[in-house]
């Protein structure tokens, strides 16, 4: 293969790694939005808590990768349900804005609470043996392979749950209509809790994988990554699960390409300018459908 093709394939691989972490977080945003039309601004911080769970489990308890990942996902899923029950459920009938502000408050609380408990950045021990394979000049590390394959697997699983199971059908029904669905015997509160649990569990998985790839974690890491994942969800069309995945891989690709061609400090600038233009041109996202407004 020529050098140019190798270079592009390598960059695509890097973009896939970044994009799959973004996708796992973006799914949580988009699922909650689809069901409650609420932006869960605390979601990026659930991702951060996931990374800290991973730190606790791996360095304090000395667990290996698989149990760490599973327990982290379980822990963040529980956290997601607790947040939903305590902070969001009482506000379901309130104006939308108070739910958004509460979410911002929950996010700040999680950040500063973690900061109060662990003021210094933490270093995650090596959970996986880092082997690098060389395929015709393209280098693929074992961590990269695990991140990409695992997140693709989780995404396929989620897609199956949402489109093929009765829980998924209930979720789609609630996002379609909130007035009559409870009358059909669908337990709305339970389904909403399950949605939060799934979203937060995926964020926990993303936190673990992020900690694998970038092993220094701090309480504010969730802000930037969370906002970027949120933007992925919007680019794909918020509320649309497949759209969130598409948006995440687009943003991952754009960021990697910017770093490849410009000084790396321009990454945020170019990425956000492109996103701004995209939203102006296609205000309802790539896979979203324009909603017709009636007076």
């Amino acid at each position, binding site marked *: 293969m020529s050098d140019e093709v190798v270079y592009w394939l390598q960059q695509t691989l890097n973009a896939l790694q970044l994009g799959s972490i973004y996708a796992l977080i973006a799914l949580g945003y988009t699922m909650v939005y689809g069901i409650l039309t609420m932006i869960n601004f605390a979601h990026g911080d659930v991702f951060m808590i996931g990374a800290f769970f991973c730190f606790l489990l791996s360095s304090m308890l000395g667990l290996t990768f698989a149990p760490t990942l599973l327990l982290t996902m379980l822990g963040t899923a529980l956290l997601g349900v607790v947040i939903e029950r305590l902070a969001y459920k009482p506000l379901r009938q309130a104006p939308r*804005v*108070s739910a958004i502000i509460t979410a*911002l*408050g929950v996010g700040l*609380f999680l950040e500063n609470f973690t900061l109060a408990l662990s003021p210094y950045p933490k270093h995650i021990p090596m959970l996986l043996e880092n082997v690098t394979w060389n395929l015709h000049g393209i280098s693929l590390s074992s961590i990269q392979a695990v991140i990409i394959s695992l997140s693709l697997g989780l995404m396929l699983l989620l897609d199956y749950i949402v489109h093929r199971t009765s829980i998924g059908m209930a979720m789609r029904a609630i996002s379609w209509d909130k007035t009559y669905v409870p009358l059909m015997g669908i337990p709305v509160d339970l389904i909403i809790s399950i949605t939060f649990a799934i979203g937060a569990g995926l964020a926990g998985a993303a936190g673990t994988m992020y900690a694998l790839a970038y092993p220094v974690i701090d309480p504010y890491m969730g802000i930037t990554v969370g*906002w970027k994942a949120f*933007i992925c969800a919007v680019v794909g069309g918020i509320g649309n699960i497949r759209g969130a995945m598409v948006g995440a891989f687009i943003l991952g690709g754009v960021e990697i390409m910017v770093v490849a061609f410009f000084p790396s*400090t321009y990454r945020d600038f170019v990425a*956000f300018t492109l996103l701004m233009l995209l939203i102006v041109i296609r205000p309802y996202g790539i896979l979203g459908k324009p909603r017709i407004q009636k*007076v």
Partner: protein
Amino acid sequence: MIALMREQWDLLLENRWLVPILLVIGFGLAFAIPEYNLLSVYVQLILMYAGINIILAVSLNLVNGYMGEFSLAHAGFMAVGAYTAVLLTMKVFPVAGFPFLFPCAVFAGGLAAALLGIIVAIPSFKVRGDYLAIITLAFLMIVKSLIENIDFIGGPRGISGIMKLTTLPWVFFWTVALVWMVRNFIYSKYGRGVLSIREDEIASDLMSVNTRHVKFFAFMLSSFCAGIAGALFAHLLQFISPRIFDITKSTDILIMVYLGGIASIGGSILGATLFTVLLELLRPSTMAALLSWLPSFVFEPLNEHFISHLGVWRMVIMPLALILVMLYWPRGIMGLREFRGFIPRRDREAHHYINPQGEEPDGATDRR
């Protein structure tokens, strides 16, 4: 008795001389306090931060509360105003003319921010709701990233060694002037347009409200105020860097607005003041100084186990308080209501038509 007092209070509010007299007293105090050291330097500093926060909260309320959009870009406009003004005072203006040229620099900062406000205003013609929130967020990130990449203005290191030109009289002047401007805008023809956009944009368009003009001016006024607040802030803190103006700053302003209550100038003023004062009260040194009158057998254990840990935990207490306020008091302190004194005389009787979502139809709450 209470009815009589209320009558007297209403009479006082109707008095034409009330506002000028209050203003003169305020200006007198603003000049006298730093001149004769009536209050400690620390309290003066808090007063100035409170003034700047009031400007920010009132102007953000114009977009988020009255117009019903969700803007996160305020910290970005602040940054633009701050950097413009600082570049003017540090690199352009001669040192000799500072007391007189400083307001020009602040004004220029506001103008620069207002011009950039157009960048957000134009997409808002087409995009609404959550997608507009993303555009404002993207704007904030773009501004921050640009500043980090321009080495001439310090890049990520920021600018230090700014002269301390912000004084209490200037903060008082800008706060009064800008709050007055926003209030007049809200109760003008354009302000009615802003409210109609919040209620129903398509319907107001059909009722021949020029929604584009209205949004254009509302965003520009809001970002102008934010720019001026940024310029004042920079010359008070004497150090600016892109990190100061990130998303957490925007979140702070949002908290002030929603704590005070949307679509209420009085609410924003209360919210900003409360936020600033509470955050300062929770500082260990302030708390210790305030509680030092307690007998030592109460104070010592309190200081050891509670107050000395506040430095870290106050940032935990603050969002927790916000969540509790939202859960038990979702409208904030003054949501959709207004102090009677802020309403123009001709609108006082009709005020409850302006805020149709207000609960009490007889307008009784307006008299607070």
